[in-house]
C-alpha cells in the first residue's frame, strides 16, 4: 500500500543556547493510505509537535516530511495551505471554532473559500455530515449555545468537508466524558472504514485500542510500537488490555 505520509528523521527543537532542547530527535514515521494509527506518550513527550510537523503546520529543524510524495519542507506557504485545505483534516482537543460564525458556517468556511459557486453542494454535504454525527438540528446555533461534545462533532464535520486523505486528531476526545468519547470514536472508526487515514494523539488506552497501530513516544523519540488487527467492533476489552500492558512494559 502507498504511504500517505513519511516523516524522515525529523528534528525539532525549541529555545536558544543553554535552554535549547530537542522536542523531536530524529523521529521517523510512516503512515499508509487508509491506515488508522494512534500516538501515545507522557505529556511533553512531543506528540503534538510531531503531528504539527507531519501536517506542515509547523516547520522542522531537520529531516523531511513527504505528503503524498511531495516534500513539504520545500514547499511555499501558499501551497502548504492549499494542501492542508484540500487534502487534510484536523480535529483538535479544544473546539477551535471562529466566534463570529454559527455551527454550519464554521463547518463550511474552509470549503467556501474555493468553491463559492457550489454553495448548494457544500451545504448538502455539510448537512449529510451533520446528520451522520447527529448535530443536524444545531446548524444555526451560535457556538456558545452547544455542548463540548457537539462542538467536537461539528469539528469532525469540518475536517471531513474536503474528503481528506488523512485526518489528524490531537486528543480529540480529551475534553469529553467517556460516553461522548466513545461516540466520537465510533464516528472515527466509520470514517476510517470508508478509506480515510487517521492519526490520533491520545492519552486514553480505550481510544488507542480502536486503531491498528499505536506508537509510543518518550522524550521526543518513538520508543515502541504496537500493531493490532483492524477493529471490527469486537474484543474491545482485550485490545485495551493489550495497549495498557504495552504501556506498563515501557513505563508510560
Amino acid at each position, binding site marked *: 500500500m502507498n504511504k500517505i505520509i513519511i516523516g524522515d528523521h525529523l528534528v525539532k527543537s525549541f529555545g536558544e543556547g543553554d535552554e535549547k532542547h530537542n522536542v523531536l530527535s530524529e523521529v521517523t514515521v510512516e503512515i499508509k493510505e487508509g491506515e488508522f494509527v494512534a500516538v501515545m506518550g507522557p505529556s511533553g513527550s512531543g506528540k503534538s509537535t510531531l503531528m504539527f510537523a507531519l501536517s506542515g503546520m509547523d516547520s522542522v529543524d531537520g529531516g523531511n516530511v513527504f505528503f503524498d510524495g511531495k516534500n513539504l519542507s520545500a514547499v511555499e506557504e501558499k501551497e502548504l495551505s492549499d494542501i492542508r485545505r484540500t487534502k487534510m483534516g484536523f480535529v483538535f482537543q479544544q473546539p*477551535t471554532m471562529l466566534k463570529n*460564525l454559527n455551527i454550519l458556517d464554521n463547518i463550511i468556511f474552509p470549503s467556501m473559500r474555493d468553491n463559492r459557486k457550489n454553495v448548494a453542494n457544500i451545504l448538502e454535504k455539510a448537512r449529510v455530515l451533520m446528520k451522520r454525527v447527529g448535530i443536524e438540528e444545531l446548524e444555526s446555533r*451560535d457556538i456558545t449555545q452547544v455542548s463540548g461534545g457537539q462542538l467536537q462533532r461539528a469539528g469532525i464535520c469540518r475536517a471531513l468537508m474536503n474528503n481528506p486523505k488523512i485526518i489528524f486528531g490531537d486528543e480529540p476526545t480529551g475534553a469529553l466524558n467517556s460516553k461522548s468519547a466513545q461516540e466520537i470514536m465510533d464516528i472515527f472508526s466509520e470514517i476510517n472504514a470508508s478509506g480515510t487515514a487517521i492519526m490520533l494523539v491520545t492519552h486514553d488506552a480505550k481510544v488507542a485500542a480502536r486503531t491498528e497501530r499505536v506508537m509510543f513516544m518518550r522524550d521526543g523519540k518513538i520508543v515502541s510500537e504496537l500493531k493490532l488487527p483492524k477493529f471490527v467492533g469486537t474484543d474491545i476489552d482485550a485490545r485495551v488490555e493489550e495497549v495498557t500492558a504495552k504501556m506498563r512494559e515501557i513505563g508510560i
Partner: protein
Amino acid sequence: MNFRIIRNDILKSKAISFTTMVFVAVSAMLVSLAAILVVNLSGAIDTLMTQAKTPHFMQMHSGEIDTARLTSFAEQHTNVEEFQVVEFLGIDGAQIMLGDQSLANSVQDNGLSVQSEKFDYLLDLNGHIIHVSDGEIYVPVSYRKNNATEVGDRAVISGKEFIVAGFLRDSTMNSTLSASKRFLVSSNDYADMKNLGSMEYLIEFRLKDFSAIGAFETAYATAGLEANGPTVTYTLFKLMNAISDGMMIAVILFVSVLVVTIAFMCIRFTLLAKIEDDYREIGVMKAIGLRLSDIKKIYLSKYITIAATGSIFGYILSLVFQGRLLENIRLYMGESENASFAYFFGIIGILLVFLAIILYVNFILRSFRKISTAEAIRFGTSQEKSASAKYFSLSRNRLFNTNTFLGAQDVLVRKKLYATSLMVLVLSTFIIIVPQNLSNTISSNSFISYMGIGNYDMRMDIQQTDNISEKADYILKTMNSDSSVSKAAVFTTKTFKAKTEEGTEENIKIELGDHSIFPINYSEGRAPTEENEIALSTLNADELSKKVGDVITLVMEGKEKNLSVSGIYSDITNGGKTAKAVFNDHTADVMWSIISVEFSDKSIVEGKVTQYANLFNFAKVSAINEFVSQTFGSTINSVEKASTASVAVALIITVLVTLLFMKMLVVKDRHSIAVMKSFGFTNADIRVQYISRSIIVLIVGIVVGTLLANTLGEVLAGAMISLFGASSFTFVVNPLSVYLLSPLLMVCAVLIATIIGTSNAGKIKISEHIKE
C-alpha cells in the same frame, strides 16, 4: 516593583504605547503652539501699537481742510490727549518702481508720508522710530514679502530717485486688509514732491480715555468736521493687525481639539482592550484579595508615564515649530514683550492636556469595579454577544467572496470595537476636508461677497478729483458700448448725517446705486430695493444699534428722511463702516464712485484692466482677483498652510490609528487566525480579510466625515469667518480634491497601515495557538 511592571508593559506593547504617546505629543504640541501663538500675537500687537502710539481715532479726508477749526475742536474736547494731521500723498502705483519692480498692479493706495510728530510713528523692524535722511525711503513691510525688494535697492517715485533704506511697520496700515500703504521719506524730499500726487489727510486723535470713544465720535460728527473718507478706530486697527494670524491660530486650535479627542479615543480603546486581555488576571488578583486600587495604580502609572513623556515631547516640538509659525507675526509686528510668558502659557496648555488624560484614564478604570471574579476566572473574557451575526450567515452569502464576507461580518459583529476606529476616521476626514474647504472658500472669487464686495471682475475707483459724477457716467457709457462687458454698474458714496438714539448727529457714508446687479451676501435681511430702505454694515449696525426692520433717520438739508434697515452685511472696505441704499440724492457731495464691471470672458480681464487704466487716467482700475490676492493674500496663505498641515496631521493620525488598531486586532484574533490557517487559509487570505474590515470602516468613515464636514464643519468655519463679520456662510467646495483626492489619500493611508499592521498575522504560528 511598580516601575519594572510598567516598563515591561510599555516595552511589551511598544507599538501601542508609542502610538498613544505620539497622539499625546501631537495634542500637547498643538495646544502649546496655539497658546504660544495667541500670547505672542496679542503681545506683539500690543507692543507694536504701544511703540507706534497708534491713533485712537483716525478720520481720512480728501479735499479742503480747515486745520485751525480741527485744532480748536481738539483743544476744547476734554478727552483729547493729542491731535495731529498727517499728510498722505497718494501716488499712482505705476509711478512707483522698487528695484526693477513696478507697483502698477498694486490694488493698494500707495503714498508718501513724513514721520509723524506726536504719535502714529512709523517704526523700523527693530521697533524704533525711524529718522529718515534725504534721498532715503522706507518701504511698507508687506512689500518685503510680495515684491522681494531689498534694502539698498534703487526706488524711483514719480521720477525721483531714492535708496531703499529699510522697511517700516505701520501700526495703522500694516495689514494687507487695509487699503492704503505709507512710504516714509524725509521732509525735504516730501516737500519737493508735494505736487506730484493727490493729497489725503489723516486726521488723528489720541484720547485720554479710550472707552469714551463713542462719545468722541459723536462729538466729531456733530461738530461737522472734515469727514470725506473712512473713519477708523483703535479697535479696528487691532482687529486688522490680528486677523491673518488669528485665522491660522483658529485653524490650529480647531485641529488641536480634534487631535485631543483622538488621543482620548486611542487611550480609551487601548485601555479597554488591555483590560479585556488582562481580564482573567484582574479577576485572579481580585480573588486573592489584592485591593482594586492597587491594580488601578499599575494601569494609571503606565498612562502617567506615557502622557508625561508625550507632553514633554509635545512641548519640545512646539518650541521647534513655533519659529516658523511666528515668522509672519515677527515680521509684521515684531517681538512680543511678554514672549517668555508665551512659554509659560504653552506649559499651562500642556498641563491641562496631561491632567485631562489622567482624569480620563481614571474614569475608564472605573469599569474595574464591574469585573466579576467568578466570570473572569471561568471564561477569561466578558462574553461579547453577537446577535446580528445571524443575519449575516456565510451559508446565505452569495455576494462577497469568503474573505471579504468574513471581514465584513467581523465589523458588523464587533461594532463596538470598530466604532472607535470609525470615529477616528470620521474625525480625520473632517480634519482633511474642513480646512481645505475653508481655504478654498476664502480664496474663491465669491468669498469677497461675504466681505461686502460684489462678484465682479474689474473695478474702477474715481476719487479725489472733480466732476466725479460726470466721469463715472462717461465710464459707464464706455462700458455699455464694450461688447465684452456683460454687466456694469456705478456706485456712488456720499456722506449723510444720521440721527442717533440720543438725538445727536453722526456721519454715515452711504453707497448709492443698484445693489441687485452685483449682489453681496447679507448676514441678515436682504439688499435695499425701495427708496426708503437702507442696508448697514455690521460695524455700523452695531454702532448705531440697529437691527433689520429698525428705522434710521437721515438729516438732508435740514429735512428728516426715514429709512428702514433692510439688511446687514459684513464689510472690510473703507474702515468697515458703510451703508447701501438705492434712493436718489442731489443734496450731498460725491465722495467717490466705483464702477464695477463683469466680463463675459474671464481670460481678457487682465488686458482690459491695462486698456482702461490707460484710457481713464483719472480712475484707479484694478482686477478684482488681484484685489483679492493682495488684500487677503496673507490670510489665504496662512489658512492654506494650516490646511496643508491639517491634511498631513490627519493622514498621520489615520496611519497611526489604523496601524495601532490592526496590530491590536491581530493580537486579539491570533486564535482565529491560527484556526483559519490550520484549515488552509493563506496569509494573503487573512490580509484580504483585514483589508476588507478596514475598507468597510473607512468607507463609512469617509461618508460620515464628509457629511459632517459639509454641515457641522461649515457652521464651525462660519464661526471662524465671523471674525470678519460674516455669518451666513457656505463652503465653496473643490470637488476634485474633496471628493476624489482626499478619499484616495485616506484609502492609501489606511491600506498601507493595514498591510503593515497585519504583517504580523503571517508570523502567527498555528502550533503556538492551538497545540495541546
